[in-house]
């Protein structure tokens, strides 16, 4: 798993790439949380999933965990560009109702 990021205005962009499963999640969880903490006070975080080649339900738990952390800082969370496989899981689990899918 790889995590890159950028900051544009009031938005934090997190770019996930690789395969997200039980094995790879702990490392990316720690890195994402550190980034969120360092950028607390921005208005929103956008998780760009374009590079995510695989994700199972571990990804749902991961995203909900980050959503809760962002919420504590009053920051909104958005998802962008999931591949078809990830998109199917995200839609099935209803995640888009709390972290909308956007095109940016």
């Amino acid at each position, binding site marked *: 798993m790889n995590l890159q990021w950028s900051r544009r205005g009031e938005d934090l962009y997190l770019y996930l790439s690789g395969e997200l*499963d*039980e094995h790879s999640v702990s490392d990316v969880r720690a890195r994402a949380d550190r980034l969120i903490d360092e950028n607390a006070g921005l208005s929103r975080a956008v998780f760009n999933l374009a590079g995510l080649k*695989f994700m199972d*339900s571990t990804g749902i*738990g991961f995203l*909900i965990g980050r959503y809760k952390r962002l919420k504590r800082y009053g920051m909104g969370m958005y998802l962008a560009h999931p591949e078809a496989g990830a998109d199917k899981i995200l839609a099935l689990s209803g995640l888009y109702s709390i972290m909308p899918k956007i095109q940016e």
Partner: protein
Amino acid sequence: MNEMILKFPARSENEVFARNAVAAFALPLEPSLSELSDVKTAVSEAVTNCIVHGYRGKGGGWITLTCRTEGDALTVEVSDEGRGIADIGMALEPFFTTAPSEERSGMGFTIMQTFMTDFRVESEEGAGTKVTMTKRFGQGQANVG
């Protein structure tokens, strides 16, 4: 008809190996990319369950993965000799998890049921759990493989 049996330790680093081995085994059936993605995800869920639930607190164990192709169908069995499931009905409920503090989503069985054509789980407390699931290829959109 073709068959494969894999046995490997219940360690999370084997999740990627297990799902890709099943995907490679299924290739002669010419699944679409979307069907292959469904199978990989379902296998990953089943193997993860063995690791994080089946052998929880037991210091490890073995996972047996059996695959069979017949006609246009792939059948996968994933079994452990772990703790077993106390209440299968509850375990199958979407979003039910015994480990909410670990950011578990409780969606594993729901994904297996949704992504595969047939799904069955058998479990005995203290003896282990076996998930059997079948994917019939070519049921949806045209194959791209």
